[in-house]
């Protein structure tokens, strides 16, 4: 009864709080925005419904993150309101038990928090009903989708969350302590578990407090059909996870019940009792010692000062106090140090690329330690959250301690109060960043890396990251002061943060409109900060001026009295608006206007500013206006002659050039379409014959020239053009690094005019095409699209010549042999010319390069690299030599006398192969394959792959741009690399690369996919399944046969002539070399999306009379196909599968040597296979090398049991 009354009273009391309703409204808005801003696009792109169970569950999970904050307020109130309002004397003395009291309060908080979570489905339903989602994206309404998500995600989350929040608040007797519970869950869910996931996915899934990681996996793995129909249900690890958190919550509550006493706080706890006892003792002596009369103590006359020095002294005193307050609080130094330690531990785990370790260079470590305020997708989201929390504590400190009246009456101006508290918070942030820098260096040191570059740490963390946080802190201070209600202040600050972080999602892209934002800065070894710093500074200055204005508002509305009514505060503010406020405010406004004006001049007048939707609209308009010319016959480029002037210091470039255009078609051409580049100014274009400019669309960058005399078939003409590149000021989107002081890099496709209508300028994404009312078309033309074969988008073969000029101390690189180099007018010139036709895709580089060189027969191999980045040069050279050798022998000759590797600025790991030139971004130079525990030489493998592109895709064999094209480029290049490793580095390297590729089986991925022959944009199909399938085939039919097929394909199509090859041509060649017995395997690997499930249930061995061992393998097999939507069809299996028996391993790392490895016919379901081996076997099983596509790789081989 009493329990019920306590529950009822608390429940009713909290429901009367306006903030609870506000939280409800806010959570539904958040759910609404999730659907509209995120999941509608996902659904459009992923062929499943917006209201599918898995999306509703996702909204529940991410909504739970925000719920944590609202719920903390509810749980904190329920747990500690009595102690905080000093009602506890009345409450605790009432005849109620601890269990009734705590139980009733907890239940009330829990019920309200579960009700709050109902806001999420409510928001989803509102979004589905009112946001105008296309009806075809909506599945039928299914209550089960909502119920399952609510019961299995929301309810357990609510229980665990409320239990922790409630316990923290109850035991600390402070309502705000509940936020620590939220913080704990948040850090575990958002920082710890994702980091743990890389180490131990199962453990991360088990620990995952809100279900985020579990759900992410479901979203990744489920096929579209499953997404639409399958309900969220706890099973496997997810079930354990839910139970674990229910257990943790119950245990916490039980402990709280034990620890909590219905007594006055000062009397509970041994520490307090001790303190209290000594205090009482001392008080007694004080009372006894003092007479009833006043002590005759004279107060020394001390002059006080209120000048500048005194103000400084006051400010410092408040700073010190403020810093101490937050540093010593539970969310203070202890927490930050903990996070820093976690960071130091987690950082080395991130210092790898696909498991390949790399040198933790400071430039890269810093990218992990920093994040702009506008990016909420890093662990550092915790810093703005802490700023909000700290600021609340500081603004409310005196009032919460009941000391405000005394403090407010002290002769301290509001400026000093604000400045002191702000500086205290700033100091805390400085300490945090110092901790972070220490963590970063510790992580580096733990990886035996010693080049700390402390100066760079200081510049980046304190020069760039700190202002980011300080600006936000100004805003939070102002909000807390203006709102003047702690919980609502937190909420307002959070909403402000959300608006900042998701502004671009809401369509606000201009940094002048998003508080504190700026174009991102960047730093690389080669380029330094480059041109990214100046715009960043301008924007930050602009926002700093706003921050000052906010500080003026903070001063005017600083609460220093009992006046809390809006009108009286306004009146007070009016009176406080003195000269200093007016002066500072005016200066701030002046600066805002000046900096804002300067920025606007740069971003919107010097440069054109376009919103994301304006850019899309432009692309749509291009297609609408000029799509009609897509099939208009156009001359093809056959030769290019360029004069390129790069001015690194001015960050400008000029290109003058001539194309030789040939009419390859059957009819005369009288109209030439020219697509100019929006990034440069394209000057006048002239022809070597009379021609008229009949259309010049500067808006969409399209020109049409009419030739006075049509170009007859087989005839050619010359087209002369010039483009000028020079940056005017800066743009909102950030710096353009095409030409930089060091490390210029640009491509012909970016700047030079292109002939004909450019399909690649069209909107490709199906959902976007629908949005802009463009006809639907597949993103990649279907394999059957015969037209594409005769009409290559970039299949032109050109003769190329260029003279490239650059700064005196730089080297410029372009395709072709270096004919000569000279210096003129303090500039260095390089003349390049190709000795064989190349594809019309190339790039220019210029930097202060160091050059390393080697030869392979007649081919010169060069590496142009940043002088400090030398770690992998030998590997690259050797890899290139080995590859050239292998490919020349197996596929055909390399047509050029040189092969270049060129480093370019950037943090990525990308290598890219253009004809004769392979460029790699700086990130690749960090790779340290020598330390790879798997023993894989990844750098050599990638080099072999990229050199492979010189045959496949890059410059010789060019596939038609239809489905299956990546199979002919990426898959063949990787398969070729396997051959290089096998032949030149020993079979072990090849096996390591194969198992490296098979590691992707462990990454959760939907099984719904196209067959390899139709692989389009799926990375896994092109880069992993493709080469693995080719490898499997080579193991079945022999490598020589597969290479023979590839050689034949290359002989027919290597010259890049129409008709361009498709995956079907490859398939035909493979069929020709595959014996009938393996035709079905070939089909299953390439022409269908087939999976095998192969399992050895038991392996037993018995020694025969002759001393041999008879091994019996109980195997189980299943084969099925999955189509692109996820429909699964079980196939009858009767396939050749390897059966292997292995000797005991000599050491743990190496599998034992095979005693037996033969293919057997394996059929569906259970069967027993018996083989005889000469030695005692240790392990046995089917498909031990995982040649067939079987995602579960750990059950193929089992230990051999001794038979009876």
């Amino acid at each position: 009864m009493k329990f019920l009354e306590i529950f009822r009273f608390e429940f009713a009391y909290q429901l009367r709080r306006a903030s609870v309703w506000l939280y409800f409204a806010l959570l539904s808005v958040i759910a609404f925005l999730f659907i509209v801003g995120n999941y509608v696009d996902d659904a459009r792109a992923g062929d499943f419904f917006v209201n599918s169970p898995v999306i509703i569950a996702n909204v529940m999970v991410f909504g739970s993150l925000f719920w944590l904050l609202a719920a903390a307020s509810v749980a904190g109130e329920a747990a500690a309101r009595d102690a905080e309002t000093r009602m506890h004397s009345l409450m605790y003395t009432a005849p109620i038990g601890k269990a009734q009291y705590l139980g009733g309060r907890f239940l009330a908080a829990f019920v309200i928090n579960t009700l709050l979570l109902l806001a999420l489905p409510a928001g989803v339903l509102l979004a589905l009903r009112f946001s105008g989602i296309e009806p075809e994206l909506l599945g039928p309404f299914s209550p089960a989708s909502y119920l399952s998500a609510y019961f299995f995600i929301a309810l357990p989350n609510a229980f665990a969350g409320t239990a922790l929040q409630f316990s923290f608040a109850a035991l600390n007797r402070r309502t705000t302590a509940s936020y620590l519970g939220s913080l704990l869950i948040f850090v575990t869910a958002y920082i710890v578990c994702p980091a743990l996931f890389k180490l131990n996915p199962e453990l991360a899934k088990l620990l995952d407090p809100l279900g985020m990681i579990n759900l992410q996996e479901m979203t990744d793995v489920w096929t579209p059909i499953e997404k639409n129909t399958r309900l969220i249900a706890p099973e496997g690890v997810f079930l354990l996870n839910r139970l674990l958190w229910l257990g943790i919550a119950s245990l916490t509550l039980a402990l709280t019940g034990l620890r909590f006493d219905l007594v006055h706080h000062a009397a509970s706890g041994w520490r307090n009792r001790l303190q209290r006892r000594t205090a009482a003792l001392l008080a007694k002596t004080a009372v006894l010692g003092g007479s009833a009369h006043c002590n005759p103590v004279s107060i020394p006359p001390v002059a006080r000062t209120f000048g500048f020095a005194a103000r400084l002294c006051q400010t410092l005193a408040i700073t010190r106090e403020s810093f101490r307050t937050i540093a010593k609080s539970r969310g203070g130094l202890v927490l930050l140090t903990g996070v820093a330690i976690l960071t130091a531990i987690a950082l080395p785990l991130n210092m790898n690329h696909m498991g390949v370790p790399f040198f933790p260079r400071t430039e890269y470590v810093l990218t992990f330690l920093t994040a702009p305020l506008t990016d909420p997708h890093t662990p550092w989201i915790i810093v703005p959250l802490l700023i909000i929390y700290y600021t609340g504590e500081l603004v409310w400190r005196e009032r919460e301690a009941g000391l405000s009246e005394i403090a407010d009456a002290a002769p301290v101006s509001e400026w000093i109060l604000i400045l002191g508290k702000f500086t205290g918070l700033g100091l805390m942030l400085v300490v945090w960043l110092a901790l972070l820098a220490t963590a970063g260096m510790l992580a580096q040191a733990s990886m035996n890396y010693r080049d700390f570059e402390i100066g760079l740490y200081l510049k980046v963390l304190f020069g760039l990251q700190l202002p980011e946080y300080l600006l936000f802190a100004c805003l939070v201070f102002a909000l807390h002061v203006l709102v003047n209600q702690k919980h609502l202040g937190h909420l307002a600050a959070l909403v402000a943060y959300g608006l900042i972080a998701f502004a671009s999602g809401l369509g606000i892209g201009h940094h002048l409109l998003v508080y504190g934002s700026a174009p991102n800065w960047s730093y690389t070894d080669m380029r330094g900060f480059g041109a990214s710093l100046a715009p960043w500074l301008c924007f930050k200055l602009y926002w700093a001026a706003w921050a000052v204005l906010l500080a003026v508002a903070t001063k005017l509305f600083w609460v220093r009295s009992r006046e809390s009514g809006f009108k009286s505060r306004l009146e007070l503010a009016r009176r406080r608006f003195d000269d200093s406020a007016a002066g500072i405010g005016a200066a701030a406004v002046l600066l805002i206007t000046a900096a804002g004006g300067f920025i606007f001049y740069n971003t919107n007048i010097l440069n054109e500013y376009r919103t994301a939707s304006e850019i899309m609209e432009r692309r749509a308009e291009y297609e609408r206006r000029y799509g009609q010319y897509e099939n208009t016959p156009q001359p093809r480029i056959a030769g290019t002659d360029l004069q390129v002037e790069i001015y690194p210091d001015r960050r400008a470039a000029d290109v003058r050039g001539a194309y030789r255009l040939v009419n390859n078609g059957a009819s005369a051409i009288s109209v030439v379409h020219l697509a100019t580049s929006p990034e440069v100014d394209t000057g006048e274009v002239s022809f070597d014959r009379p021609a008229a400019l009949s259309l010049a669309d500067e808006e969409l960058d399209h020109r049409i020239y009419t030739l006075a005399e049509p170009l007859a078939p087989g005839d050619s003409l010359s087209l002369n053009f010039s483009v000028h590149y020079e940056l005017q000021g800066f743009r909102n989107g950030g710096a353009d690094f095409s030409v930089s002081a060091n490390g210029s890099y640009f491509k012909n496709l970016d700047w030079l005019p292109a002939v004909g209508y450019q399909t690649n300028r069209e909107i490709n994404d199906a959902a976007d095409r629908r949005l802009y009312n463009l006809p639907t078309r597949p993103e990649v033309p279907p394999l059957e699209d015969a037209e594409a074969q005769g009409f290559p988008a970039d299949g032109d073969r050109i003769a190329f010549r260029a003279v490239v000029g650059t700064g005196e101390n730089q080297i410029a690189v372009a395709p072709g042999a270096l004919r000569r180099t000279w210096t003129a007018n303090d500039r260095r010139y390089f003349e390049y010319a190709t000795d064989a036709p190349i594809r019309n895709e190339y790039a220019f580089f210029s930097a202060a390069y160091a050059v390393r060189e080697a030869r392979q027969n007649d081919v010169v191999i060069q590496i142009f690299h940043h002088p400090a980045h030398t770690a992998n040069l030998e590997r690259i050279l050797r890899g290139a030599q080995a590859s050239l050798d292998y490919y020349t022998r197996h596929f055909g000759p390399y047509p050029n006398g040189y092969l270049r590797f060129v480093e370019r600025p950037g943090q990525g790991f990308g290598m890219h192969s253009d004809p004769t030139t392979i460029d790699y971004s700086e990130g690749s130079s960090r790779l340290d394959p020598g330390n790879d525990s798997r023993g894989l030489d990844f750098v050599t493998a990638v080099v072999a792959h990229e050199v492979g592109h010189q045959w496949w895709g890059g410059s010789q064999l060019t596939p038609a741009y239809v489905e299956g094209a990546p199979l002919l480029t990426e898959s063949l290049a990787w398969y070729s690399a396997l051959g290089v490793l096998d032949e030149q580095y020993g079979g072990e390297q090849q096996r390591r690369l194969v198992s490296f590729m098979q590691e992707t089986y462990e990454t959760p991925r939907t099984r719904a996919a196209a067959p390899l022959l139709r692989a389009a944009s799926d990375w896994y199909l092109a880069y992993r399944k493709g080469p693995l399938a080719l490898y499997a085939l080579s193991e079945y039919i022999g490598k020589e046969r597969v290479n023979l097929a590839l050689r034949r394909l290359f002989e027919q199509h290597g010259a890049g002539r129409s008709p361009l090859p498709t995956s079907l041509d490859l398939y035909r060649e493979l069929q020709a070399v595959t014996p009938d017995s393996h035709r079905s395997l070939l089909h299953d690997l390439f022409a269908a999306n087939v999976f095998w499930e192969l399992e050895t249930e038991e392996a037993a061995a018995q020694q025969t009379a002759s001393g041999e061992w008879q091994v019996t393998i109980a195997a189980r097999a299943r084969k099925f196909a999955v189509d692109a939507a996820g429909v699964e069809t079980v196939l009858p299996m009767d396939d050749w599968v390897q059966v292997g028996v292995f000797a005991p391993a000599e050491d743990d790392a190496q599998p034992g040597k095979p005693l037996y490895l033969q293919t057997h016919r394996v059929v569906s379901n259970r069967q027993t296979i018996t083989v005889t081996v000469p030695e005692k076997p240790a392990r046995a099983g089917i498909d031990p090398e995982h040649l067939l596509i079987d995602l579960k790789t750990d059950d193929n081989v089992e230990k051999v049991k001794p038979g009876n």
Partner: protein
Amino acid sequence: MELHIRDVSKTYSNGVAALKNVTLTIPVGMYGLLGPNGAGKSTLMRTLATLQEPDEGSVRLGDTDLLNQKDEIRRTLGYLPQEFGVYPKASAEHLLDHFAILKGFSERRTRREIVEALLRKVNLWDVRRQKLGGYSGGMRQRFGVAVALLGDPKLMIVDEPTAGLDPSERVRFLNLLSELGEQSVVILSTHIVEDVSELCTRMAIINRGEILLETEPLAAIREIRGRIWRKVIEKSELAEIEEKNAVISTKLLAGKTVVRVRSRENPGGGFEAAEPDLEDVYFSTMMSKASVPDGQPELN
């Protein structure tokens, strides 16, 4: 230096008129502001402590406009609010030092002297390193006095300081206050008559936002000498006596009721002349000017 309060009025947003045209002139010395709970004392005190804005009226301390020159006033202001808390984890010495900086003692050495002198004065020197959270009510109150005394204030506002103190603490506390009145304006608000009678040279009685009486305690007592009568009665007789006489107070004494009435002549019926005290002044003022002294909501 005098404190001039002119026509100060304040009405809260819930319609309660906390102050109505309050006009007072307060000279140097101890000044008692006497009134029941909810009379508007704290509103007036907070207004004088620069923490609340009146709707109308002006307040001047000497030549300084208290309402508009807050910074100047705060430099010479000592304020001990009716209720205040402390940072429980800070020591008295640390927190007093902090306030000393805020009050303009910038120099470290002299600040130490001041802090020590004040802590000795309020008898907290021996417990100065103790966490304030462990202090008793009286110790905390004395700590508040130390803060208020910082900087030798010319205007001292002490709001209900003795509420909740035990008798010996109260005596010690009043002794501490009595020293202040020598050069400063000290305003002491209280609902305990003895506080005023023991300390103050001048006083005012306030109820329902209005000043009912402004006087010197001794003069006021002198004025009603010979008009106060007392009688010990049974409780049951009270109703009859109240009907016939102007009863100003009733008290219990060993189970009987002592009733005091005001009358120019002996009311007869067993009443004996009584020596008037300040309490009689207070109660008779309240009785004559206001019909219902109690039952007002507490105004804060």
